[in-house]
């Protein structure tokens, strides 16, 4: 009896902590529904009548649909590319036990140790030469190089748990190596693939520095994070617009999180522990 009471008290305390912890975000929601004068009088008060005009304005000023589309294109190209390139290479490198294979593996995973800021200056130069700047497609392609090392590492480890007999089966049936891989092996890698998708999509969707460097100045090729940053700079005093803008920017990621919650937790843990 005493014990369960203690657990109950801890539970209540933790819920209180959680509310305080999330209070900044609660304030964002409250203030996105207020008029400008209401924000100026008291940030903590609830809106007298919820006003959705801020969202309408922020939606229009941000050109929200095209932003979402741009970010989605870059994220999709980036994530799909990373999944394909790293699963193929991770599988082959894990199966081939030669010195050359080991060497290629090291070349592929060593870049995990190079921080992005250590090569971004020259990366911008290379992106310009390859005509990858100023477009979300180019941005997606650059993500391949940045995302493959960790993902390849994760596939490489997981493939060991897939019996080699399956490779031989597909081979005897006369499949081409690529078809054998995508029809027989790739479906079996699904648990890692989920983790890889989650890790890469969350990172690319929320990334700021690379888009800032390679898309800068290109109005048509804005991503959500980049546009949000500019938006905040522009509407410095209109906090009500800005708060609605924050919510609009954050919503897709929250939906993604709610839809894939289990996989996200698993993916994040997998990625972290493997690295």
């Amino acid at each position: 009896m005493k014990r369960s009471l203690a657990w109950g008290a801890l539970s209540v305390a933790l819920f209180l902590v959680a509310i305080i912890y999330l209070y900044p975000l609660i304030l964002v929601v409250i203030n996105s529904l207020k008029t400008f004068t209401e924000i100026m009088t008291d940030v903590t008060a609830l809106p007298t009548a919820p006003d959705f005009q801020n969202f309408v304005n922020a939606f229009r000023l941000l050109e929200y649909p095209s932003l979402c589309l741009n970010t989605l294109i870059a994220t999709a190209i980036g994530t799909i590319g990373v999944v394909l390139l790293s699963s193929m290479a991770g599988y082959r490198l894990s199966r081939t036990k030669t010195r050359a294979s080991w060497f290629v593996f090291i070349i592929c995973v060593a870049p995990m140790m190079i921080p992005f800021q250590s090569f971004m200056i020259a990366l911008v130069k290379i992106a310009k030469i390859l005509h990858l700047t100023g477009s979300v497609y180019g941005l997606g392609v650059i993500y391949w190089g940045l995302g493959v090392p960790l993902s390849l590492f994760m596939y490489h480890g997981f493939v060991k748990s897939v019996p080699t007999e399956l490779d031989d089966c597909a081979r005897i049936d006369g499949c081409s190596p690529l078809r054998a891989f995508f029809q027989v092996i790739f479906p079996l890698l699904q648990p890692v693939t989920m983790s890889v998708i989650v890790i890469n999509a969350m990172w690319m969707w929320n990334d700021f520095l690379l888009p800032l460097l390679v898309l800068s100045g290109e109005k048509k090729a804005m991503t959500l994070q980049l546009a949000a940053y500019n938006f905040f700079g522009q509407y410095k005093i209109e906090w009500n617009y800005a708060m609605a803008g924050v919510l609009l920017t954050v919503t897709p990621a929250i939906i993604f999180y709610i839809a894939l919650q289990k996989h996200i937790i698993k993916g994040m843990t997998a990625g972290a522990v493997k690295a």
Partner: protein
Amino acid sequence: MKSENLKRHLRSTLEFAGFTVPAVIVIFAFVELPFLMSVLYSFTKWNGLDKVPVFIGFANYMEIFTNDPNMMQALGFTLLFTVFMVFFTNVIAMLLAVALDSKVRGKNVLRAAFYVPNIISMIIIGYIWRFIFSKGFDSFYALTKIPAFQLSWLGDAKLSFVSVVIVSVWQAIGFYMVIYIAGLQTVPKDIIEAAMIDGARSSTRFFRITMPLILPSITVCLFYSLSSALKTFDVIFSLTFGGPGTATTSIALDIYKTAFSDSRFGYGSAKSVLLFFLILLVTVFQLSLFKKREVEA
């Protein structure tokens, strides 16, 4: 017979290449080549516009160490920030993980709640907190009259350091909490129960049994928090932009400003090469320190 063998060898080599070369190409083009180029640029003077950078030997490195108060300030800030960030993030995340791995009610909701800030991009997080520190704190002061809310949390050099730490820790806790929970779940319950029967107190049980067993998680979390703190950028970019003055300019932000605001690409490259070595040194040291202490249940 021999040509048959050769053919098979050729085919398996081709297959190996077909599977691996695409990955190698993108990694080389977008990570390794630019990194090597940065190392080369670090020995040059180059404004990004001239066709050919001018070779100047170690002059950039000399300047960093002898004649660049901004970089030294950024180095000091980054190291101090890293110490605070790594300490508070890991301690709080571990405490939460222990609390939320117990029999407490509603732990799934609580876990999700603490994870929420981690879904939001750092750029937005920084902006949300700029709102809290300015408008929010004004209202808090009006309501509570607590003097702390009246201070200039983003305008004062010392306080803005604290603000950057608070916001970074606030955002990061959920992620590390999840890793610690995963670690705690691998601790066999019978060992803990055996210790309980032997009369070990809960603090002894935690430090003597649980901690050593979740050392792999601690190693990972320290590694991650160290390397991400040392290259912190986004949150500062939108929260303080390195200010007031250069009080909260991290190395990564200093590199960005040197290269893309001052157009000193050679000099910025030298700084970026140093950042690489700094992170490598710190993380390799940490890993070697922790890896050999890991035990198994």
